[in-house]
């Protein structure tokens, strides 16, 4: 069965129906979207079932010529980096839909865009053809732009334009580099191709490799976002409707680190090592900066948005420790951040629907009025600050472990991010839910059945990962192992590997500080 094609395109079926059937009522539109998303989730579990945890290469690969004359193909496949992201996407979309269930403004269009967005997000996690990836990656800007711009709050137009242009500028560099790589495949392999498995075999000049690495990295760094390219994020996250914030935080931010894992490490191993230290420093700056700025926010949504900058810093730090622990931690952390931040935005959305404010100063005492919303927020908070037993602990632990292995100063600084995280998140909880009640926080309804239906699965997933992370890690580790070995191979074994780049490592090249050899992936899981 073409699992990946099914999981990518199933949601798309609803789009023409929603756009063309004018007589459809709002309720029908919502249910149609929900049914398709849940069906897609079931297919995503099918993908998970068909995925062989023991393998490190690409699986469930499907390839169909698209434009044969230029070597462009519809080529999809997954490995340990992407399998969980596919499942996470299919999981968070229905959650986000439930969060925005109450939307009454142009419901059909909203549902159509949501379904379209799901297709392109899953597609970008599955594409193994570089141009196909770019198509999905670029196409996701449009529905997201419209979702923020049409259904967002006061400054939505500014935020949506900023989001679009920032990301598009970043991906411009990716496009040119992609075309350059394509040109190289036609020169070196005799036939132009966008297949990344072909591109791996290119032998590129070291300096060219580094330039291309930078181009790809900048493109993805905007998406992550990595300090100092993060300024679109607080605006976009804050102004987006709840559904949009959940999708942005839980899924779109993952496209950045995913792209780095998939393309930067794979295509430019030498440059990845060369730049690892510098990027590690940027990541740590992001961790601390995001945390400090988050502490100063009075708008709870903005606070969570800045916390994302901090958390994504951990992901990037983990990747560029170039150790199995760090990288596996980063992948797990991508999933975790999706769950916990998604849940935080969900809780904030519930509050906003009831209090019509995001200012923490205007809330307060909500724990007495809406105890279950408070509980949801608290679970998400505790997860977000890395309480053992909940999901984030595993990822952060592994990343910091990896970071200490690579450079103990970076590790130490990263830990301050964890501490600060606890400060601002608990403080936010306190300001919102405890203390004296304000005018706005009286006579509110607690969680509705539909909200329960969204919250329970997310919390359950958080607990499972927190208590038994092996479920996730055993599918991730073989791939990270492979990636670490691939990057390490650049200097360790110059002979016997394909391509000339390994022979051309320049004299001034210095190995990243204490890159730990890929050892014992099984023991990584605590």
């Amino acid at each position, binding site marked *: 069965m073409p699992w990946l094609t099914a999981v990518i395109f199933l949601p798309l079926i609803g789009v023409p129906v929603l*756009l063309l059937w004018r007589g459809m009522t709002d309720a029908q539109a919502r249910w149609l979207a929900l049914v398709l998303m849940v069906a897609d989730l079931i297919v995503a579990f099918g993908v998970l079932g068909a995925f062989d945890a023991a393998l490190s290469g690409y699986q469930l690969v499907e390839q169909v*010529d*698209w*434009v*044969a*004359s*230029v070597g462009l193909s519809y080529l999809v496949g997954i490995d340990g980096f992407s399998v969980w992201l596919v499942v996470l996407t299919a999981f968070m979309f229905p959650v986000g839909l439930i969060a925005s269930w109450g939307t009454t403004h142009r419901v059909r269009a909203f549902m159509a865009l949501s379904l379209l967005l799901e297709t392109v997000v899953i597609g970008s996690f599955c594409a193994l053809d570089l*141009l196909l990836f*770019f*198509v*999905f990656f*670029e*196409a996701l*800007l*449009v529905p997201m*732009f*419209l979702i923020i*711009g*049409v259904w967002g709050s006061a400054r*939505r*137009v500014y935020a*949506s*334009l900023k989001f*679009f*242009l920032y990301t*598009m*500028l970043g991906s*411009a*560099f990716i*496009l*040119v580099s992609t*075309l*350059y790589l*394509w*040109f190289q495949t*036609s020169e070196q392999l005799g036939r132009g191709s966008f297949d990344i498995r072909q591109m791996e075999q290119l032998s590129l000049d070291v300096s060219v490799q580094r330039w291309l690495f930078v181009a790809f990295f900048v493109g993805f760094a905007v998406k992550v976002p990595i300090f100092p390219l993060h300024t679109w994020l607080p605006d976009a996250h804050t102004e987006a409707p709840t559904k949009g914030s959940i999708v942005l935080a839980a899924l779109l931010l993952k496209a950045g680190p995913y792209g780095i894992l998939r393309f930067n490490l794979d295509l430019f191993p030498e440059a990845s090592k060369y730049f690892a230290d510098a990027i590690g420093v940027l990541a740590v700056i992001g961790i601390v900066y995001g945390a400090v700025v988050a502490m100063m926010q009075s708008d709870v949504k903005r606070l969570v948005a800045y916390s994302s900058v901090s958390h994504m810093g951990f992901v990037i730090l983990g990747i560029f420790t170039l150790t199995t622990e760090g990288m596996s931690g980063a992948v797990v952390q991508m999933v975790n951040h999706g769950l916990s931040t998604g849940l935080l935005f969900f809780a904030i959305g519930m509050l906003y629907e009831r209090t019509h404010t995001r200012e923490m100063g205007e809330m307060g005492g909500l724990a007495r009025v809406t105890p279950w919303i408070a509980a949801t927020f608290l679970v998400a908070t505790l997860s977000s600050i890395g309480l053992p037993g909940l999901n984030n602990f595993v990822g952060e632990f592994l990343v910091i472990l990896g970071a200490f292995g690579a450079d103990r100063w970076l590790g130490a600084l990263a830990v301050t991010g964890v501490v600060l995280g606890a400060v601002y998140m608990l403080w936010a909880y306190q300001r919102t839910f405890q203390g004296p009640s304000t005018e706005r926080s009286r006579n509110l309804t607690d969680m509705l059945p539909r909200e329960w239906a969204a919250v329970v699965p997310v919390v359950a997933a958080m607990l499972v990962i927190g208590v038994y992370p092996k479920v996730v890690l055993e599918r991730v580790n073989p791939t990270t192992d492979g990636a670490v070995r691939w990057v390490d191979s650049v200097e360790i074994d110059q002979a016997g590997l394909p391509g000339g780049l390994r022979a051309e490592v320049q004299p001034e090249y210095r190995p990243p500080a204490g890159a730990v050899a890929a050892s014992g992936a099984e023991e990584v899981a605590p």
Partner: protein
Amino acid sequence: MIRTPAVDVGPIVPELILVGVAVVVLLVGVIARRVEPLALLYGSLAGVAGAAAASITLWDWDGAPTVLAGTVAADRFGVVVRLIVLGSAAIGLIYGHHYFERSGEGRPELYALVLFATSGMTLIAVAADLILVFLALEILSLALYVLAGFSARLGSVEAAMKYFLLGAFSSAFFLFGVAMAYGATGSTRLVAISESLAGRTSGLALALTAMGLLAIGFAFKVSAVPFHMWTPDVYQGAPTAITAFMSAGTKVAAFAALMRVFNVTLQPLTWDWRPLVWVLAALSVIAGSVLAIAQTDIKRMLAYSSIAHAGFVLTGLTAAGETGISSALYYLIAYSLTILGAFGVVMLVSARGERRTSLASYTGLGRRSPVLAGLLTLFLLSLAGIPPTAGFIAKVGVFSAATEAGAWALALIGVIASVAAAFFYLRVIVLMFMREPEGEEETDETLVPKLVVGVAAASVLVLGVFPGLVLGFLDQAAVLRW
């Protein structure tokens, strides 16, 4: 053995049909003053369809590569360009009919003029002699000067005057270039010039001057910076239906001639003209994208965007030869469909005449007329080069051609300019969907033109998702015969 020159008119049958039908339509319109305009429209469309059918049969032309004493080339390149032009003409006729009937300015000459212009555009695609290129250029230009001033509005007349003066100016440059080329090589036939230039290492001054002058002439017609000044004024002033036809047809035709002249005649000078095209491309892309940001009128904005698009086509052409030609042809197909669709929406939003072309009148269009707003959004995304539209594939095509030719810096300029360009396209989308309408304003919801726009939109999507449908043909068409 002496062979008598055969007069083989096969390869110009499409032009003969067009001109014949144009003459008939013109006479019928003059003699029978009470003739139903719809009948003229059907007659003209039949002529266009006939010409298209005649072009398609030329795909497998197995006669001589050039006919009529070497002045007309019979190659697949000509077939593809003709089909693009004829498609634009068909849409232009339907728009024009609708536009002028609605504004009450309909006159029977309209159909004949569009057909004459079209015959010039198709002829230029196969012209293999500089004199014929010039003649075809004049045929299409003269008809368009009149069409631009077809409405009695002051703006329209002014546009026609500007277009005429600057167009005549550029024709003079072009003709001067032809003279220089003749002076340098003793021939005006594209192939003969090329053969004469091949292998020459000295005495190229005249030839290079000719190249520069021809380039200026073409740059005027395709509206490449710095020869673009007329474009915004004419596009804005001309009746929207005519602007649509002009923006697609003229550009395709002029680029077709440019491709043939540069890749055949000036092929020996490739290393000299590539930097020239590089500079024109960079300037057009940057200036078009940046200046469009400051516009407050949608027709003017689209005019600047068409300048930028000329730059993108030129970007592809920096790769001399088949790669460049095939990428440019795809770009022209995508651009024609998109710009015709976009101007179609502009025409429908104006409802009658030129009443509402300011950007402000698009405020809240998504609420008032969701279908038109949705279609325009698709066209704008295609112009911006966002997947999965034809515009995206087209941009990838020209950028990869440029990269392949080593002009990756130009590709980088192009993609960055695309981001700047995205801003003003998005601004229209913002106005349409993210602002509330200020009052109820009528839009034209007539079925036929809306259907035409819908077909253009569907084509933009289909070509964006399945570019392979035409790419195979384009690769074959990119081989110029002489």
